[in-house]
């Protein structure tokens, strides 16, 4: 699918039915159009995904940088919305802060796993001076680590904080949907290890794929739609007004 087509499609979507319908009509042009679905209600904060991703993709385990991480939100429901107290906790190393009861201060808690959104209109791709970032034909955004000059412009430009400098490699790094695995027909490492099925990955052009089915049936949203980045990571059950 051409990027322009993808943009056109997403731009017109408001509810799930038309998006999936529109995305799938592109079948003839290319064989695959990858997407990722995160079900916020299913995440239990075990952090398996964070660790599996770091192991699979050689990201330093103990440094607070990660291709995928989990944000925990704790909200005081007993105060008016305008004064809502929100506490945010992040798991991006092997240490799991969600296990500590003290971290859940308020009455309502939920977890939001995050990763690179593989934006169809990706700010990081737009700003990279040396074309080290690019879209594959399946819509995945990749970094060519042999070309990246480490100017860090992409880190500054990404509205999601999904890209970081790998201090060992001296180039930027981010989620690739485990490109080395998905091209062999495997699932991304985080999807593979998630015990509750909070993460799903698949091809939107395949009517049998799990992401196709979920997005066809359920209401979904994306992070920061106002940025116009047209993410390929879709969320179910996201409390948009609270999640950063």
């Amino acid at each position, binding site marked *: 699918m051409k990027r322009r087509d993808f943009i056109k499609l997403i731009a017109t979507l408001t509810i799930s039915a038309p998006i999936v319908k529109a995305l799938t009509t592109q079948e003839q042009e290319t064989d695959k159009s990858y997407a990722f679905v995160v079900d916020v209600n299913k995440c239990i904060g075990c952090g398996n995904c964070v660790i599996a991703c770091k192991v699979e993709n050689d990201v330093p385990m103990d*440094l*607070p*940088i*990660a291709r995928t*991480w*989990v*944000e925990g939100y704790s909200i005081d429901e007993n105060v008016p919305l305008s004064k809502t107290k929100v506490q*945010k906790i*992040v798991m*991006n190393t092997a240490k799991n802060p969600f296990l500590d009861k003290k971290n859940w201060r308020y009455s309502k808690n939920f977890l939001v796993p*995050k990763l690179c959104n593989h934006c169809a209109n990706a*700010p990081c791709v*737009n*700003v*990279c*001076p*040396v*074309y080290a970032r690019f879209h594959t034909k399946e819509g995945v955004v990749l970094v060519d680590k042999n*070309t*990246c*000059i*480490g*100017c*860090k*412009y992409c*880190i*500054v*430009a990404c*509205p999601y*904080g*999904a*890209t*970081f*400098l790998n*201090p*060992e490699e*001296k*180039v930027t790094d981010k989620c690739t949907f485990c490109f080395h695995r998905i091209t062999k027909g495997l699932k991304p490492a985080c999807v593979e290890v998630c015990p509750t099925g909070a993460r799903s990955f698949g091809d939107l052009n395949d009517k049998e794929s799990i992401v196709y089915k979920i997005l066809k049936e359920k209401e979904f949203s994306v992070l920061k739609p106002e*940025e116009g980045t047209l993410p390929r990571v879709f969320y179910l059950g996201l409390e948009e007004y609270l999640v*950063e």
Partner: protein
Amino acid sequence: MNGKEITFIVVSLLIIFIGALSIYQMHTQPILPIEPYETALGIPWRLLVAQYVFFAVSATGLCIVVSLGELFGVKKLEKIAKEGLVMALVMILIGLMTIGLEIEQVMRGSYAMLGHTNPSSLMFWMIMFYVLYLIFLSFETWFLLYDDLLIQANEGGLRSFVAKLLTLIKIENSKEYAKVLGMIKLVTAVIATSTLGALFSVTHLKLWHDPLLPIYFILTAIVSGAALIVIGVYLTDYFKGLNERHEVFQTLRHVLVVSIIVTILFTAWKLIIKAYPNSTLLSRMAVYNLMSDYAINFWVFEFLIGLILPLMLLILPKTGQKIEGIFVSSLLVITGMVFCRIDHVVVGQLTMKISGIDVTFVSFHPLEILSSIGFVALFVFGYYLAHKLLPLGVEV
């Protein structure tokens, strides 16, 4: 060469050496395995980027101020053309060196030279324009100094050798060429600096996301350029025991007053609009970060010391009519401008998160600070060398 001069050279070289070692340690870590500031705990663009912005923008400012004399007929400023251009040249060279050494994999810049570039990236255009600017500026300076170099060639010693080397190629009407190149260079400099501003504007970060930022960069370029040339000319005259360029200082005083007033207006409206209740939450947060967490930086250094105080000193006849008064104001302006660049680059990134972590307050690593001081020393030393080797004799 007297004792003081030798001390100056030794100290400068020492600071430059320490700066170079710090940069080396930051990039290759032969001593410590991983520097903490390189993880996501910190913001990606840091002190050296702010320093680059300062150098690059100031170099443009110097060119704009010089061109007032050279191209736009402000006769009194013609007398500082050579010094201004050489200062701009040293400044942009050190500036490009700063950013080159800040980038993690600078050697891969060769890919870019081989055409592996992204024309939708403003960083690419900024580099292109600054390199073009450097080329035009070098040739212009050469043409402008050419006649004096011919005279200097007969002096004997190292100066004569340098002059002979630079006059190996024979040219006539060098001043005419200098004028044409001066015009082209000015346009390139303005485009380069506004592209640098735009590079920040096009991000999602609220303190930066502003269509007027490129113009703001040009405006503040004039402020810092005028202040720097005052400092340069004052110190040169002081060490050469001269005291005869009153008119130059008075003209620069006017340039400074006007540009500072416009900068105050610009800054005030920029922040008021971004902090207005109708602006987005993030935009208001960004201004709040600047005004509260970085209150000392902003209110004391950037605003009071950098703009208000020098403006008062310049306007008051008692101080403004004295060379010393203008010199002190310029020192204050430059202090403010340094903080202005740091605040712009650093505070601008504070609404950002990396891997879910909020960046709240940034402290600079000692190695960053040392290398930054090293670059400043390199600039001062470079300008001193230029005075020693080039015909920058003061025109009165």
